[in-house]
């Protein structure tokens, strides 16, 4: 890591840190860096920055580094960190807010997970429910791994666990409008 000038970092990251604090409801300054979040985090082994480090970076104004990190996409939202934080700070909510900001800023470090989520929501927006077969096919095509998990498809079909056609709800036009309205309301509020 390069040396960092903390005075300028604090000033440069101020707006983004404020947004993340408002969206998550977490005051990052209250974190006293005990590391309990990272000790319990089941995905910390694969992260570039552990949850404790993400909290520290936000304290230091290194907000852009956090929204470019892989850690925020790898977070499984298991909430172990939030349940164990002795300051009741809910790092999982910080991760959630960082993901939303990363998407807005166009930084999606981990394409696979971002793509999976996007395909998932697109399926909900058009059908009202998730169409799992369509989700997996769309995800595999987008990430160029057409045969991933294809081996289980025949037995899933035989077991009645995979449907070939989506189940569409009557109110899917409402669901579609909900996506548009939620997007607009959050954009107006930022």
């Amino acid at each position, binding site marked *: 890591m390069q040396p960092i000038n903390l005075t300028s970092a604090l000033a440069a990251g101020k707006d983004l840190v404020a947004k993340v604090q408002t969206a998550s409801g977490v005051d990052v300054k209250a974190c006293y860096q005990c590391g309990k979040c990272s000790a319990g985090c*089941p995905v910390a082994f694969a992260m570039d920055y552990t949850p404790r480090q993400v909290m520290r970076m936000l304290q230091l104004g290194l907000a852009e580094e956090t929204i470019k990190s892989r850690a925020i996409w790898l977070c499984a939202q298991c909430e172990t960190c939030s349940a164990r934080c002795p300051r009741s700070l809910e790092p999982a909510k910080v991760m959630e807010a960082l993901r939303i900001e990363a998407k807005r800023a166009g930084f999606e470090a981990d394409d696979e997970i971002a793509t999976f989520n996007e395909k998932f929501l697109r399926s909900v927006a058009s059908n009202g429910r998730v169409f799992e077969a369509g989700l997996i096919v769309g995800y595999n095509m987008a990430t160029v791994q057409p045969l991933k998990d294809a081996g289980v498809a025949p037995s899933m079909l035989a077991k009645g666990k995979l449907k070939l056609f989506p189940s569409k709800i009557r109110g899917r036009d409402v669901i579609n409008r909900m996506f548009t309205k939620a997007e607009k309301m959050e954009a107006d509020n930022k």
Partner: protein
Amino acid sequence: MKYAYYPGCSLHSTGIEYNMSTLAVAKKLNVELEEIPDWNCCGASAGHTTNHLLGLALPARNLAIAEKQGLDVMAPCASCYNRMKTAEVAVKSSPEIRAKVAEITEMDYAGNSGVKSALEVFLKEVGLEKIKASLVRNLGGMKVAAYYGCLLVRPNGIGMDDPEDPMTMDDMITALGGEAVQWPFKTECCGASLPTARSKVGLKMVNDILQMADISGVDAIVTACPLCFVNLDMRQNDLNKKAGGNFNIPIFYFTELLAIALGEKPGKVGVKKHFVSTAQVLDKYNLK
């Protein structure tokens, strides 16, 4: 006792056994379920980590419909339960959020109808005493590890049991005549969508849980989440083939074991649809 039923997307596809066994248990215990008409997906983790309001509005629409039915909701899926409970708490605690959610969903949800997991409805509301009085057979000492995962027990204020040492399913196993195995990975995360979206990372998480269950000498693992189920059941084959694993641990939904103990035929509640065969363990404990 009557609830609005929210099966959620998984129970109509990959978690079909959970639906079959939940309906069977409800019938045995006289819990009337009325499906929420035209329910939509709760958005799961993808929803709230993409847009905070959308993550509240998707489950709130279902709660609003249930409110019209005049019923509380029963949601068996851990993620659906968690998202609905989050929306319920958010709307109840803030008139501002209630108004925003109403604008998005085009329906006002006042917070009068709440949500309960299937664990709460069957094991707390109906209760173990009534269940014990209705048992047709018992698990004969089957060694079962209760696996709760994340979203049923966390975060604080949303979870339906202790976040570190939940006991709801352990108590059920004991009540059904099984041995609730003490093991340290009751609430360890299975990776949720990571075994699909980032298989190297996700499969390691599944591997660790299965390995701990193996070391703990279990006959089976019991869960109450359709995604945990898929990860633990379907991915054993992946781990055995690609990562040199040697797993053969049957996974059950808690409702499958409950339905069987209440006298339902195992085939009727979906245990033949699992990837890891359940025949041997059911045979061993005379539960065919």
